[in-house]
């Protein structure tokens, strides 16, 4: 076993770190406050390759491995968790399903644009009445000649307003329940497809989360993604990778919160000495560091399994569950260590605290991750 990063992985991490430090970190607080989509930063990232990290070069991507992907997301998230999810959803939930399941024609038409960053991707599974239980979704796709007519509403969709291409799950045969859901590649410009206003959220505020509304929206039959009736599987497959990315996002947030504590506790003096001298603070930071390292181990394990072509669904769920809860614990403790200042928007830990909560919920709540893990362990 070798815990060393490869040359590619190291270079990727350094590029992401350098970019995040200069192009995200100085603005993250303002974007969060104003709920502002980081348009300029994303534009730069599009041309640098951040939008096609694992997609092979023949489709316009970078051809890097999954470890490179998680390292990138971690570094972005450390500076701005919102940007990390914009990039993460695009890569893992927008581009990856087309790479995995798309026909040659679909790859040519859609994947190359996504991987080269010309188009932004999104993924729409959740509905007002179908969150953890996607089978209860209500969106339908009815065949009409060479098209399917989409009707329904998706909710809480990341990149909802800004994306050009959305992978949408809809019932093509409700009687078949889970096996009657089909995935579609839907272009924003298709008739009858609109995005609602940006949600005003607790955390991850710079990413735009919207409702997507389909009113008699015709989608060509050639845009069915993957096997007919295989939409739920496609979604779960995408979520497997998505979750490893979200775990890396959580890791970035946790690291940011911990590093803020190291700096702050050395500077803040009470009772005549830096609060870093108090063992209570040292132990809190020691626990943070230990949990962060454990989370990193789970994430690298899941990513490495994927790169080796092995199944990684359970490990991915473990990584997402553990890392997001570590982010939440670390951020909570970090606010505590900062005292009153930790409640102020001027301090990054305040944002980490709000962002971590959201990370425990999307791409499957902690409860759903436990369900996935238990199912596998108790099989």
């Amino acid at each position, binding site marked *: 076993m070798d815990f060393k990063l*490869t040359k590619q992985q190291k*270079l*990727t991490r350094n*590029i992401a770190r*350098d970019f995040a430090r200069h192009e995200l970190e100085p603005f993250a607080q303002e974007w969060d406050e104003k709920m502002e989509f980081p348009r300029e930063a994303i534009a730069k990232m599009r041309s640098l390759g951040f939008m096609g990290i694992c997609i092979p070069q023949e489709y316009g991507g970078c*051809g890097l491995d999954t470890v490179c992907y998680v390292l990138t997301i971690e570094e972005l998230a450390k500076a701005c968790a919102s940007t990390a999810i914009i990039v993460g959803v695009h890569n893992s939930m927008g581009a990856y399903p087309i790479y995995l399941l798309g026909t040659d024609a679909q790859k040519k038409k859609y994947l190359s644009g996504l991987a080269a960053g010309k188009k932004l991707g999104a993924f729409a599974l959740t509905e007002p009445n179908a969150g953890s239980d996607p089978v209860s979704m209500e969106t339908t796709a009815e065949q009409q000649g060479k098209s399917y007519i989409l009707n329904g509403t998706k909710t809480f969709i990341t990149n909802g307003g800004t994306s050009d291409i959305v992978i949408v799950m809809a019932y093509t045969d409700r009687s078949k329940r889970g096996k009657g859901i089909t995935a579609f590649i839907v272009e924003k410009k298709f008739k009858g497809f609109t995005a609602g206003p940006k949600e005003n959220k607790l955390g991850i505020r710079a990413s735009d989360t919207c409702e997507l509304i389909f009113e008699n929206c015709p989608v060509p039959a050639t845009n069915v993604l993957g096997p007919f009736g295989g939409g739920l599987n496609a979604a779960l497959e995408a979520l497997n990778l998505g979750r490893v990315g979200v775990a890396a996002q959580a890791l970035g947030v946790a690291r940011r919160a911990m590093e803020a504590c190291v700096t702050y506790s050395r500077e803040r003096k009470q009772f005549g000495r830096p609060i870093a001298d108090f063992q209570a603070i040292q132990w809190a930071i020691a626990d943070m560091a230990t949990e962060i390292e454990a989370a990193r181990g789970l994430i690298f394990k899941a990513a490495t399994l994927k790169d080796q072509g092995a199944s990684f669904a359970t490990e991915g769920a473990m990584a997402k569950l553990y890392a997001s809860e570590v982010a939440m614990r670390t951020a909570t403790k970090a606010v505590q260590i900062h005292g009153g200042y930790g409640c102020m928007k001027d301090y990054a830990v305040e944002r980490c605290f709000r962002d971590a909560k959201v990370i425990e919920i999307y791409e499957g709540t902690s409860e759903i991750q436990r369900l996935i893990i238990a199912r596998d362990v108790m099989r």
Partner: protein
Amino acid sequence: MKGLRIIVTVKQVPDTADVKIDPKTNSLMREGIPSILNPEDKNAVEAALCLKQQHGGTIIAITMGPPQAEEVLGEVLAMGADQGVLLTDRAFAGSDTLITAFTLSRAIMKLGKYDLILCGRQAIDGDTAQVGPQLAGFLELPQVTYAEHISIEKGNAVVRRGLEDSTEWVRVKLPTLVTVTAAVNAPRYPMLYNVEAACDGSRIIIWGAQELKVPETMLGLNASPTGVKKIFEPERKKKGQIITGDPKDMTGILIDKLQELNML
């Protein structure tokens, strides 16, 4: 002209302006500090990339250092350079600026013809600004230091030099060596698109003392005439004072201060 052949010298340095000094050994304490591409070398790479965009050609980046210095070549390749050369050998260890420049010059001679050599003005870990000029010396090239702007016109480099109290325009025939400051440009980010190709090993040449055909007596610590006598942290200058308020009050305070210091 069939495009320019540009050589850029780059160095891996510790990522901080205030590395600690070990008071016992008088040396820089580098452990645990991440390494980066020296900032002004990045400017030199960017200058090379801009010239390549205008005139076509190839860019070869060269570095001397321990094996891990290959990392900065990866970064430079990901920025868009075409080839990297790593000079690494135990025999090179402990080289001062003169011997570093000598070793680089031998490698550059081995690389063959070139039009332009670009160097960062100085490295943040030593701040000597000597290697560029010394390299020009060994290669018997004209040199232009402190470049803030470079263009190539009809076989000449036209360079604006940023001096302490003035600027100077210089026209010099190619081939030449130019050292650049941070004012010359804003370097681009390396591209993730280029990472795979930058790391597959096909674009980096590794040379040691043998390949350069230089006897070990002319290399490394023993050949280096410079000895470091003492290293110390400069005393921090007193902080300036910023006067605030409305212009009238500020002017009053300023005049009082200047009179106090017998400067008016």
